[in-house]
């Protein structure tokens, strides 16, 4: 669905990381965790192409005025990495954006009652909040959030408010465990005897490590990928990733935007570590 959104809030929540809330049609409330939005930063031709962002949250926005009706909202969490995101960060309340959302294939929540292990690296937490929000309705949920420094570990308070048990790790030791978040994940899997279901989003190196851990321990695992994409609807074929059976002779490319961004880790090809 394509719509004009009005920005309700756009704030830097950690150095370089921003969270934006905008209005959306009621259909946005049906967005599945793991789906994404294609955002046109401005109506000019520079930047030309839309930017994809995971759906961080959807819900009903209650204006501060007494008597004002609540309206549906869409939230994204983004990191300023280039021209497009820098322009987004410069926008204010009441500015308008052109959005296509929700797009893509989201997470499969799995059976109720089973322990859910959410693993996020940096801005990779973006599509995992809505996931946690839905998972806590049916299962015990643990979050493993990693980053280079404490500034790269985002929105932990929000996850805790949902009742999620949060574990953190930073490469410089400025928050939580010192090292990679995968170490903390493995400690938990050691405790539970490799039960549960993993959901991961973050840098490619982290996803590869998580997929490796899941494969070795026989734990089901879904990953959410990023891709350079122009259209978001499966037409440009710019964002493809390699399926498990991919080789030069038997090519197996999957569209991140339409077949993903969420894939079973076993469906994809991972470089041997």
């Amino acid at each position: 669905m394509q719509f004009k959104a009005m920005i309700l809030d756009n704030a830097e929540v950690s150095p370089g990381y921003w969270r934006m809330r905008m209005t959306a049609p009621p259909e946005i409330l049906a967005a599945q965790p793991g789906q994404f939005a294609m955002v046109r930063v401005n109506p000019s031709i520079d930047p030309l192409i839309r930017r994809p962002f995971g759906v961080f949250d959807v819900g009903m926005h209650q204006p501060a005025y007494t008597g004002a009706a609540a309206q549906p909202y869409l939230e994204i969490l983004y990191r300023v990495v280039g021209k497009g995101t820098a322009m987004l960060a410069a926008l204010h309340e009441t500015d308008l954006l052109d959005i296509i959302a929700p797009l893509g294939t989201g997470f499969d929540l799995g059976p109720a009652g089973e322990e859910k292990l959410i693993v996020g690296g940096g801005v990779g937490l973006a599509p995992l909040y809505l996931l946690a929000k839905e998972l806590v309705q049916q299962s015990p949920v643990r979050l493993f959030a990693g980053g280079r420094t404490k500034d790269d570990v985002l929105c932990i308070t929000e996850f805790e408010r949902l009742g999620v048990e949060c574990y953190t790790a930073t490469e410089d030791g400025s928050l939580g465990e010192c090292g990679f978040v995968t170490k903390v994940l493995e400690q938990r899997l050691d405790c539970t005897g490799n039960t549960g279901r993993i959901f991961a989003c973050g840098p490619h190196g982290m996803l590869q490590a998580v997929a490796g851990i899941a494969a070795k321990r026989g734990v089901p695992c879904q990953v959410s990928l990023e891709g350079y994409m122009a259209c978001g609807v499966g037409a440009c074929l710019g964002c493809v990733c390699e399926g498990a059976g991919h080789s030069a002779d038997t090519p197996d490319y999957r569209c991140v935007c339409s077949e993903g961004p969420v894939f079973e880790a076993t469906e994809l090809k991972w470089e041997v570590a």
Partner: protein
Amino acid sequence: MKPDMSVEIAGLKLRNPVMTASGTFGYGEEFSQYVNLETIGAFVTKGLSLKPRAGNPTPRIVETPGGMLNAIGLQNVGIEAFIQKKVPFLRTVNTPAIANFFGYTPEEYAELATRLDSIPEVAALEVNISCPNVKQGGIVFGTDPACAASVVKACRAATTKPLIVKLSPNVTDIVEMAQACEGEGADALSVINTLTGMAIDLERRRPVLANVTGGLSGPAIKPIALRMVWQVSKVVKVPVIGIGGIMSASDALEFMLAGATAVQVGTASFVNPGAAQEIAEGMEQWLLDHGVGDVTSLIGALQA
């Protein structure tokens, strides 16, 4: 009174001059949620080959100022899967579907033309002799007039459907290419495909695209495309389909003044999936506002 928006390309009647360009609109179905396909003149499929093609490694696309580079590598499902999986959708839409295709030898082009000729849902054929992103075939045929002529000749003998040839701008003299194709029986010419370009990642000292070079599209190329449409349409008798950076109704109308009988909207559909429909509606509104009763009166009406 509503202006007459219909145009004709080699006997193929279009309700209006706006088509979607090959490689930017999938096989039609991908965009059906965003565009009422029955509001546009025609749509062109992703380039088809005899065998499925996997395409290039990633990164395949990168944005550039006012445009984008792509090196998809003609990933497509192949003619068999096209017939089995994509043609049934074409049957449900009352808008002509044009099949874009490419081969590696003139014989392969002819075989594809023969097979496409037998599909009733395919209204016309667009021969791609201009893809800059594959090693053999494609561009090789598109940069040498004799090679281009041999491909067009082979296709012409294989089909009675309207035969459109999509030209590459990556040549010294596009007029010479156009004349070579017209001489062998092309019914129309699509002008232009993407321009070869590249982007560099300074910090990594590497090309951004895995394929090193890619095809530049988007508004950045519009002035070049306009110039080439103008040059070609002055010397050929067959209709020219203008392509290159069309983002708005006024862009499309400029191409018609330059000599185009119809236009194709490409990169704009990525930015705004409803672009083709909005452009068709905007053109009609412009004609209405300017008291122009028939869109064909604008073709080549440039006062130069």
